[in-house]
């Protein structure tokens, strides 16, 4: 792998044998707990996940459908001041995303002022002209954002991707914590770790806070799923369950006179807020894809009439599009009046001739991604790619440059991870979850750490064989006081 030595979240500088000062206790724990014991606990966690059916489906996988995501027992840790800085950056970014969406589907000042090229919006498959002029209740678009981050050094966090449509993974954040509490309680005695289990309550509050204004005191909220064959179905049911709301499929909803109802055994019940886990394309066959069987006829009309809140708002894809991503520093500055506290990874937009040329000249060093790809599909990791793969990508780039962006291969931070030979550093990324309601923005102290289990690999996607870890956010910068005294 051509990437240089990487910062380690626990050990600090690459190759260090001593953990970072604040994490000495974690270093001791790793030293004194032998691999066999760690492995036993890890297997116990995975057996529980299998029993609970915490699974995801891998698209295109022959042997059907169900796998658990490998779970790694060694947590990644954020010190308090690291987290505080990250949170500020996340709040700023999500604020900008919301203002951007409101503008793009409204007045379009950012285009009029020439900050963004028009065709980047109007020629973009993620832009939904059907939504233009509609405004969600309370003017909030991106209620739930998952912002993918990577780290390359003590102070170097970069945003890799903004997920403002239907980011998933929050169930793993919660289940991984449950597993750690059960299997490694000693760690929680040594470190004061911020709790993540308030997430469902916060989500429900967020949903209720953005109900249409004329709704009563107790708005009816639901989670809309494509159904139990969807890869993230476990998460959908988990969230509905932990919020105590109905998990509905499109066939359970009916729109009548611009009002959304659900069919129950005792008749129809009016629905006020829908957390949809269905893409825009399939949401309403009258407005988007007419062949969608997953959609609800008339839903968008009900939304336009202001009778229902849809979370996240339709049309959000334009904010997490990879072509728009490269303009995010400008977008943040335009809407918040300040430089982005969380920088982007340097990005070459292949639609621009110079950037394309640079990309073609440096394919062996770059990561090239489809603008509208996700889940690690349709990407080239230059340093590990074969000659054939590079040749294929070169042809594809020349044919349709506007579909691609390229980024330098970063030395992603590592975390000690239990592999066959024992503990070894493996690259990670991180997805925190940011909630925006009518009463403000909040960052849940935790998130989903994904880990590339193969040595040297930078691909952490679960669909590409990545695993997950618990993510500790410390409430102070070191071992807890009570522990120090005992």
């Amino acid at each position: 792998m051509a990437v240089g030595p990487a910062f380690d979240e626990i050990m600090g500088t690459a190759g260090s044998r001593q953990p970072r000062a604040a994490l000495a206790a974690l270093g001791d724990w790793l030293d004194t707990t032998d691999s066999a014991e760690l492995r036993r606990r890890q297997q116990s966690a995975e057996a529980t996940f299998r029993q609970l059916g915490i699974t995801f489906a891998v698209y295109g996988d022959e042997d059907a459908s169900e796998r658990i995501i490998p779970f790694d027992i060694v947590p990644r840790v954020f010190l308090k001041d690291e987290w505080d800085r990250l949170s500020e950056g996340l709040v700023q970014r999500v604020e900008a995303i919301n203002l951007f969406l409101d503008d793009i589907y409204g007045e379009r000042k950012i285009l009029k002022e020439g900050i963004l090229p028009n065709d980047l919006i109007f020629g973009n498959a993620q832009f939904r002209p059907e939504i233009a002029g509609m405004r969600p209740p309370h003017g909030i678009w991106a209620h739930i954002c998952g912002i993918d981050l990577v780290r390359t050094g003590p102070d170097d966090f970069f945003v890799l991707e903004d997920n403002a449509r239907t980011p998933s993974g929050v169930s793993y954040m919660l289940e991984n914590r449950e597993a750690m509490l059960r299997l490694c309680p000693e760690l929680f005695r040594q470190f004061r770790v911020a709790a993540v289990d308030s997430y469902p309550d916060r989500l429900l509050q967020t949903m209720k806070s953005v109900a249409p204004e004329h709704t009563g005191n107790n708005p009816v909220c639901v989670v809309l799923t494509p159904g139990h064959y969807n890869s993230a179905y476990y998460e959908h049911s988990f969230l509905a369950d932990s919020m105590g709301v109905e998990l509905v499929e499109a066939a359970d909803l009916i729109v009548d006179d611009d009002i959304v109802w659900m069919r129950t055994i005792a008749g129809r019940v009016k629905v006020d807020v829908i957390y949809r886990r269905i893409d825009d394309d399939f949401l309403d066959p009258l407005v988007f894809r007419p062949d969608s069987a997953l959609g609800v006829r008339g839903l968008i009309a009900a939304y336009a009439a202001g009778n229902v809140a849809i979370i996240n708002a339709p049309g959000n894809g334009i904010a997490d599009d990879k072509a728009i991503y490269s303009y995010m520093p400008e977008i943040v500055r335009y809407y918040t009046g300040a430089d982005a506290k969380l920088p982007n990874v340097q990005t070459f937009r292949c639609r621009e001739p110079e950037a394309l040329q640079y990309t073609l000249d440096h394919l062996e060093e770059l990561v090239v991604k489809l603008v509208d790809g996700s889940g690690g599909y349709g990407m080239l990791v230059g340093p590990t790619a074969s000659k054939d793969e590079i040749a294929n990508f070169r042809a594809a780039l020349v044919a349709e440059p506007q579909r691609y962006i390229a980024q330098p291969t970063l030395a992603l931070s590592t975390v000690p991870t239990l592999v066959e030979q024992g503990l070894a550093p493996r690259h990670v990324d991180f997805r925190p979850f940011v909630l925006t309601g009518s009463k403000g923005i909040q960052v849940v102290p935790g998130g989903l750490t994904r880990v590339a289990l193969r040595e040297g690999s930078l691909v952490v996607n679960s669909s590409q064989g990545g695993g997950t870890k618990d993510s500790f956010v410390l409430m102070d910068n070191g071992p807890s006081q009570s522990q120090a005294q005992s």
Partner: protein
Amino acid sequence: MLSRTASSLYWLGRYVERADFIARLVEATVRLDVLSPRPAGEVAWGSALAVIDAADAFKASGANLTQQSVARFLTLDTSHPGSIVSCLDRARNNARAVRTALTRDAWTGINRAWLIFDGRSSPGGATATMNLIEAVKAETRGFEGAIHHMLKNQATWFIRLGQAVERADNTARLLDVKYHILLPAGETVGGVVDRDQWTTILQTVSAVTAYRWLYNDGLQPANVIDLLIARHELPRSLAASADETVELLSQLAKRTGHHGEADRMARARHTRIAKTRSADIIVNGLHQYLEAFIEENAKLHFAIGRQFKFS
């Protein structure tokens, strides 16, 4: 509650109950085949197939009528919709669709039952088959236990309603088929094989000891019929299933505020069974009685679907 959810819960109840019943049927048949003084062999396995109306499907599969192949057909055959694994698969799909309405215990119960069959291709010999059956029964018992620890609300009532309707059907079929076709040619009524076969019926519904408690009179077919049809104390009797159906429907009516056709049918059936005497049934034809019961039960099933807007 969503109509779709109610429908899935009801079917979940039916499929778990069916899987459990087939497990008991296989167990009883293995016993009859292996333990009786003269192995009943083919006839026993043939009648096991007849109970669940699967004789033709088995024949079409081309396999011979042996313990091994029938046991495989009834337990592991994924192409046969009436096998235990197929029932559990459908139960699990329904459970997944309504996970939010189930407790963790209830869901893991059904998921664990399903996992028993993961990667398994043969039921093995008699002992291995019995072990497999024992595992299935343990998990379905666990599921049933979990159901009884759920909130006493609509979710629980719909699952139990499915179970009650399915149970009535299973018991009626068992009694009907065993009574009519079990005895091999040349065997006399009241002979050894005959007696073993009546014992098998009791074993299938877990009622051997119950029978001894209630009837101080050796094994009499008329008593077995009385027990399985009219005794409210036996949880798998037609009378007990009818009681439970009425009770569950009235709980649901209280909660939703709607009575309907299903309530009326269930109450009418309940009243009629209460007046039934097993001697009269035998005089007028047990087979006719059971056939009518099964048909009526199917009508009740459809009425339930209409009443709660299952689609």
